[in-house]
């Protein structure tokens, strides 16, 4: 029995190893071709770079500067970080209020927020972009409000669930001691919410960083995020498509995600499991 198990484990390990290598092929292909000349990318996409096809980092310098890609990278970082920070702050405060204040308007707000989670973006995309335009929120600063509003459902839902599990006596005691609501929230509640806040930050960061349609419709021309730059590069008119530059662009788009993953793997996986509850 033991011997059989051991053999099974060796076979299982090898099978997983092969599968894991296959899993990485698409990414390896992009990385490899980002160092090759255009002709070689189209003629022999599966060949490793050699003396003839290797072009050093010229794809990176040419492709990225041509499409103003680094500006898009900057906006992606700004919009993601600022939106996540705002979402964490305002939705955790709202969740505390909703969980603790028993009134008709907190129930209405809560159920509307939960309802918004099942509404597909296409339902509101046209009107949202018009609202953003009319209220002058159609720029990288205003879009933060749109993300906070459209993302509030999931964040408030998870936060509220967690606040309800905190014994209310802690807050009562603090308030009897004369602490203001502001102090109670930041000194008592928010520290308890921290693990949940990290989960929610991860979920929102993944969504906003990768989001294509919302910024495309909300931002006025002139502002781009990474997904927008990638899409425009392939559909826009940059003359003959510089595939080498495009490969470089994809690599640069993926690198921040890999770094984020390497540092926050534990939280990311935990966040995914927690986010699944929204079903």
């Amino acid at each position, binding site marked *: 029995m033991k011997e059989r198990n051991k053999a099974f484990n060796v076979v299982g390990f090898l099978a997983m190893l092969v599968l894991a290598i296959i899993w990485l092929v698409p990414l390896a292909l992009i990385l490899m071709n980002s160092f090759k000349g255009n002709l070689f990318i189209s003629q022999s996409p599966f060949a490793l770079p050699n003396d003839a096809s290797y072009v050093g980092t010229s794809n990176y310098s040419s492709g990225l500067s041509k499409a103003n890609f680094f500006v898009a990278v900057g906006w992606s970082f700004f919009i993601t970080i600022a939106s996540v920070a705002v979402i964490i702050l305002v939705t955790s405060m709202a969740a505390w209020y909703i969980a603790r204040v028993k009134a008709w308007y907190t129930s209405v707000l809560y159920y509307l927020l939960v309802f918004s989670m099942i509404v597909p973006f296409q339902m509101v995309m046209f009107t949202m972009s*018009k609202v953003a335009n009319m209220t002058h929120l159609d720029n990288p600063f205003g879009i933060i409000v749109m993300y906070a509003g459209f993302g509030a459902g999931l964040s408030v839902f998870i936060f509220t669930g967690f606040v309800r599990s905190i014994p209310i006596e802690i807050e009562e005691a603090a308030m009897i001691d004369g602490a203001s609501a502001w102090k109670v929230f930041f000194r008592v509640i928010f520290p308890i919410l921290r693990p949940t806040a990290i989960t929610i930050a991860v979920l929102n960061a993944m969504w906003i960083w990768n989001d294509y349609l919302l910024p495309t419709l909300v931002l006025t021309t002139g502002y781009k995020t990474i997904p927008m730059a990638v899409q425009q590069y392939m559909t826009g008119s940059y003359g003959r498509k510089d595939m080498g530059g495009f490969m470089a662009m994809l690599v640069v788009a993926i690198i921040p995600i890999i770094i984020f993953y390497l540092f926050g793997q534990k939280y990311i*996986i935990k966040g995914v499991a927690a986010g699944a509850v929204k079903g």
Partner: protein
Amino acid sequence: MQVSKYLRKWFPLFALPTTLAFILAFVVPFAMGLYLSFTKFTTVTNSQWVGVSNYVQAFSENKDFLNALWFSLRFTVVSAILVNVLAFALALALTRALKGTNVFRAIFFLPNLIGGIVLGYVWQLLINALLGKFFSQDLTYDSAYGFWGLVILVNWQMIGYMMVIYIAGIQNISADVIEAADIDGASFWPKLIHVTIPMVASSVTICVFLTVANCLKLFDQNLALTAGAPQNQTEGLALNIFRTFYLIRNHQGVGQAKAVIFFVFVAVIAFLQLRATRSKELDG
């Protein structure tokens, strides 16, 4: 001291920011969208009431919307089954005492973090390279390429995510139950069917719902991989709605009507899911 009473007057500080953002980004656009689906408009200020004619037009004008619906349904059923079977198999393998399970899990999960647009182009390049090498064709040659390409892409993206949820489910099964089955001499398949799968039923419901919802709503990957080529044959619901809005002249009303139908469709599935989960919880 009552927290509820004390906190009540602090609405402007704690709840107002979220409420305002929510009204601007969701409540107003949703209500306006619902209203506009019954009107003819090009911007939101020049709408004229036309009753249900947008809804009629969505189906009667041409077959594109029905084709997109049919494409999305086929794609969703095939992908949801494949993703869940494969993710569950991986979760089973990676909860055994294999070497390097953590590294494997990390690798399988990785694609999930990459956005749909980037994923779509990565796979477009890979699939076109393969089709070019072996058949001298590309993705626009046959809609079957686009369909299966999208299925493979979505499997690559979602399997790792569902695997993580299944692993959590499997690890929650108490050791006693497994031991009891082992003592009874249960072999692999009976143990899987009568013990493991029933014990992770709630994970199965969650994963099936998540895959179904995400496949129905799929947009970015669809746009980047084929953009509907050849001739809109690989166009899903979300992409069809987007194009009705922005690419066909004077069709904003029809696009909004399609979006409402899409929303109702997704909401019904979400409701069924909720009921299924509730009844399971009562049983168990």
